[in-house]
């Protein structure tokens, strides 16, 4: 095992051992407090450009299987843990996490005091970091980090969005959790780095999902005559994704729109609001949110570094419908006149609790109403 260093923007360094490939990798460093779900986290496109620190110390316990993927790639820039499991155990496992990381040439290190690192990030805020197995010179590492663009202002969506339009069909990797219903709704989904479980759930709710690249135009979208528009989760700063913001802005009031995570932030911007960067973000599977409409609490899966400032939106247009109980930040909003609804957390879970999965049904209801009014106006 090669000695490795994790060097942070503020000059702090942590030592560890590289367990997979050698080399160097830099990105924004974030910690995730979920105790299970490393496979989903690694394959979540929202982590593009980030080095992920797992706060749970024992990672890799149940190996890697064929089903629990959220995309076809590993998107993290680096993976930092206390101890990688050397002998996994689970009936579904097909390979070990270490092999998986090696095959995908992901720079992963262990032996790090991840709790000290997490405390550091909590106190100092999110920052850039670089993992290296070759360069241990702090000056040189600092230079490399300085050259790395900041997460704020970076458009990462273009790195992860689909290259061409496709219709979701999960038959080859059928997920037994979700039964397939007859298709009743046609959904246009803008892929900003969409997690697969969103597709699986929409499919199970009777949606045919047409997935568009992020640069799709309103015309492209209208061409399929969708019942609703979905804007997905994804990486980076929402404010930088100007073309999608514009596309969405044009669709508001014309189509039912549902957004998750980055999609929610894009909606916030499209509705005239502002987003800001959180100190260290929300990344985990234990965040309590309150559904202000249903007056119920759910434990949610979260992964975001930016947040919509509800105060920046016109109260006559937009209202808060979901709130984070830890820091009172905005977790969900809806338009008062148009069928527009979005959530900052991840109702699709994977990984994490499925408490908020019911929220998808609001999207279905919006599309149903849209269908109903359309058929009334065009009998």
């Amino acid at each position, binding site marked *: 095992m090669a000695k490795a260093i994790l060097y942070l923007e503020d000059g702090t360094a942590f030592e560890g051992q590289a367990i997979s490939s050698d080399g160097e990798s830099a990105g924004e460093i974030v910690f995730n407090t979920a105790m299970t779900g490393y496979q989903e986290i690694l394959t979540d496109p929202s982590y593009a450009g980030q080095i992920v620190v797992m706060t749970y110390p024992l990672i890799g316990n149940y190996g890697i299987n064929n089903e629990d993927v959220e995309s076809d790639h590993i998107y993290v820039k680096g993976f930092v843990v206390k101890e990688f499991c050397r002998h996994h*155990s689970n009936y579904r496992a097909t390979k070990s996490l270490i092999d998986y990381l090696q095959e995908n040439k992901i720079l992963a290190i262990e032996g790090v*005091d991840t709790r000290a690192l997490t405390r550091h990030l909590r106190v100092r805020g999110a920052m850039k970091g670089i993992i290296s197995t070759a360069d241990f010179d702090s000056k040189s590492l600092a230079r490399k980090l300085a050259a790395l663009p900041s997460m704020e202002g970076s458009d990462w969506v273009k790195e992860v969005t689909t290259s061409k339009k496709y219709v979701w069909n999960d038959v080859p990797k059928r997920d037994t959790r979700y039964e397939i219903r007859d298709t009743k709704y046609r959904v246009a989904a803008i892929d900003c780095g969409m997690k697969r479980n969103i597709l699986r759930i929409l499919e199970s709710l009777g949606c045919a999902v047409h997935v568009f690249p992020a640069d799709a135009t309103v015309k492209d979208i209208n061409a399929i005559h969708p019942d609703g528009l979905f804007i997905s989760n994804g990486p980076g700063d929402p404010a930088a994704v100007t073309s999608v913001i514009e596309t969405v802005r044009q669709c508001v009031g014309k189509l039912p729109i549902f957004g998750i995570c980055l999609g929610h932030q894009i909606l916030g911007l499209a509705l005239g609001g502002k987003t800001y960067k959180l100190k260290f973000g929300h990344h985990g599977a234990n965040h309590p949110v309150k559904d202000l409409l249903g007056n119920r609490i759910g434990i949610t899966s979260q992964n975001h570094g930016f947040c919509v400032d509800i105060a920046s939106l016109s109260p006559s247009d937009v209202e808060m419908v979901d709130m984070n109980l830890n820091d009172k930040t905005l977790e969900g909003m809806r338009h008062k006149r148009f069928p527009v609804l979005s959530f900052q957390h991840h109702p699709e879970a994977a990984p994490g609790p499925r408490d908020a999965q019911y929220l998808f049904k609001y999207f279905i209801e919006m599309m149903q109403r849209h269908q109903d009014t359309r058929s009334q106006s065009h009998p």
Partner: protein
Amino acid sequence: MPKRTDIKKILLLGSGPIVIGQACEFDYSGTQACKALKEEGYEIVLVNSNPATIMTDPEFSDHTYIEPLTPEFVEKIIEKERPDAILPTLGGQTALNLAMKLYESGVLQKYNVKMLGANYEVIKKAEDRECFKEAILKIGLDVPRSGFAHSFEEARGVAQEIGFPVIVRPSFTLGGTGGGIVHDMEELERIASLGLESSMIHEVLIEESIEGWKEYELEVMRDNKDNVVIVCSIENLDPMGVHTGDSITVAPAQTLTDREYQNMRDASIAIIREIGVETGGSNIQFAVNPLDGRMVVIEMNPRVSRSSALASKATGFPIAKFAAKLAVGYSLDEIRNDITRETPASFEPAIDYCVVKAPRFTFEKFPEAKDILGVQMKSVGETMAIGRTFKEALQKALRGLEIGHTGLDNKLDYTNIPDEKVRQRLEEPNASRIFYVKYALQKGWSMEEIARLSKIDVWFIAHIAQIWDFEKELIRCREQGPLFPAELLRKAKEYGFSDAQLGKIMDIPETQVRSLRKKEGIVATFKLVDTCAAEFEAYTPYFYSTYESEDEAILQIQKISSGKKRIMILGGGPNRIGQGIEFDYCCVHASFALKALGYETIMVNSNPETVSTDYDISDRLYFEPLTFEDVMNIVDVEKPDGVIVQFGGQTPLNLAHRLHEAGVPIIGTSVASIELAENREKFAGLVQSLKLTQPANGSARSVEEAVKIARQIGYPVLARPSYVLGGRAMKIVYDEESLLKFIDEAKEVSGGHPILIDKFIDDAIELDVDAISDGKETFVAGIMEHIENAGIHSGDSACVLPPSTIGEALIEQIKETACKLAKAINVVGLMNIQFAVKGRTLYVLEVNPRASRTVPFVSKATGIPLAKIAAQVMVGEPLSKYRLSYKLVEQLKHVSVKESVLPFSRFSGVDIVLGPEMKSTGEVMGIGATIGEAFAKSQISANQKLPREGQIFLSVRDEDKREIVSIAKRLERLGFSFVSTRGTARTLRGHGIAVREVGRYDQGQGEGLNLMTLLKKGEIALIVNTPSGEDSQYDMRSIRAAAILHNIPCITTIQGAREAVNGMEACKDKELTVQSLQEYYSLGGHVSCAVS
């Protein structure tokens, strides 16, 4: 929703005596509940028969009843106190069953008492297996295939249908009493009958065996707005088939993917909703087939449990406290998380460490019982360890057990263990299986083979293999040198190896490992348990040690730096027979008392069941094993001004010498004084110089010496190893042959310490005295007279306070002697003395300059908080400040009896006769105006319900024949009839008492006259059987065993029989009444002794 205002007075039920399956975790939960409800301004009525609990301290509730936990007594309390509501979900199965009975008999309805947390229907749905199964299937979840039986014939039918092996589970019992895995019809007959017997509703479930499946538990909380959170997941290392209380368990679950974990989480939420637990915590168990992931629901506890105590300690999430708040109407989002202060309780803890719980067994106390584990719980305690890796946590847990292991070490040399034995120890779950996993690895067996034999998941075995592989690296290093490269030493510490363990492997003294380590800067770092994996700032100081880069304890100490003096209190570690809740009680009191004086208190303990390990008891809590190394690591960081070793039982006391040598400031009685009291020779000298009397004695370091001493002082002698607690391996020896046998057996226990030999004084009255001294003055707080004669361990003996048969002159002599001894030994703090009285001679049996098991009992009986005063005295407060005098005790208008509770029903094949080795797990207290009343209550509380009518079996040894006559005459007047064995019958007839003579079951006097038959038919209401010589004992063993099985009270001493008659007369004459401690104290003119 704000708290409920329609209720003002709440009745809280405790769990009674410590028994296997129900230990001090319910004092922890009950105490939390009391505090939480008091905080909300409710008036609390508390009932618990266990005096050694913090919850029964009079300041924790408004009306504290130390009364039997039976429907009759609780009804009396309800009638008197008229509570608006009852909270039955915090006192274990005892409280739950009791509330159910009170509902069924209409008492709750009659007095309009609302059930909080869970109502009758909910509890029934969760506890009744048939209802539960139906509910689970209704919501689309899976259960093992099964059927119910109410008779043996039904059981046979169901078992045939499912096919062997099957599991028998009795409905409505505690800790799985009476259940078992059954492989054939013969076993079915035995276990099903036992199960039917122990079930409250005479019902057993016969179930598809899922032995060997992976076992999980989820701790769930729900509020009245239907918000549900999962507090913690637990995975058992020992798979299905071993009771979860006997399993090594790990938190969080390790080998579930997120998808499987979420399935389990969803199932738990669906279950708590379907069963309908309105508010509070529940525990749900699952089994998962390792081959295909099939998940079945095993059971649910609609109340806080042992596992929820563990989950609370493992995560920092106070389940019981929140359960109490939810019960009175709050919702989870309205309760703050104390640890982070910012976030609400409606979240799920994220943990960034690994927790391992290991059970502590006491099979050595019951040599006739096999240490085989099954679905019936057998462990008496547990230890919990926290580490950053499983390897570290496992090794810490194993050394924390205090069973002579320094970690996952090599107590046995694997080359000497036959393969067959290893295979058997892997296949058949047992108390030391984890070590056999390592022996098998040492023998070169593959992980897969070990997993196949043991059904332990290979994930766990692989970690043990890593420990062994690393140990091999150490051995190579030892052989080749250099001795210990820093890198290797650091890795060893990260893997959880203790200094002592490394010393053994490297063949160097432990102290050298320690100095080597410190030289290299390899020191323990402390991390916080904060419920949130460092995502938020934590305020509650709860630490564990590990070997990492950052030490958060140092940071916090620097930040607080209150300038207050610091006192560190060493707790007692895992409960065991002889060392349990009583010592935890003392530690908690010490912390309270010193905080009140303005000290900063630091608690060190490894027992997750306890109140002391609640994070808000002391200023800082270190959840660590009680070993020299682990304690020194904390001392290095905390630099305490004083360390208290005399409150946590023998565990910290055993460390006293080494800590003192290492320069740790031990406060109170000095180490030299402790040694003076514990060293037999020095102590004998002291007794002589004070002109006191001691039974002739000596201590022997060799067999020859022992034989010589015994001949000199004459048989019978009491032989025992020194430095042990609870009379471990203590025996009364009548001849030389038995002595030699004893010495041979005692070798393992004594660990190189000498063997003590005392003249055994037959037929003496034994007395226990608890006193406090500040080195100048001594206060004798309690003199307890044992009901059984000397020769029965004081922990097993019933006792009465004030003493019932000894006169004023003797009491004076006892007080004087106690003062003399305290002064001579220079006791500062607590002291316990055991005396024997025969004729006019007062013998000093032993002096223990530490907190004793009876401190809480004496405190409850007298209202004087002994442990608190002692703790303050130890930091220099003069005893005179408290204005104590024995008059306070003499003024008491009530009598208190302590009775012990024995675990015999758990260990089949073990005889129930008492002796000098302690066997009880817990105690109860009965309080009354007379000794008869108090004794009767104590018996009811100890589940030895004295009959009011019926037939009594009397069979006594010759020495007791005279006394049995007067006892029988009194019983006759109470309306009882008698059956007896030949000798006793002859004696009774000789005195004109009518008696029916029966043979034992094998003497064939025909149907009806056979004792065993009478027993089985339920025609015997009480057994009085005092055993004589070994042979006769053997004959009676099966009778006593049958008594246990059929729950017939069985008295084995003549003194016990005498007090029983007193008690029965007391019950006959008048209805027993209930009174709170607060009332008793004020009646005694006793001003509750304020300790500032």
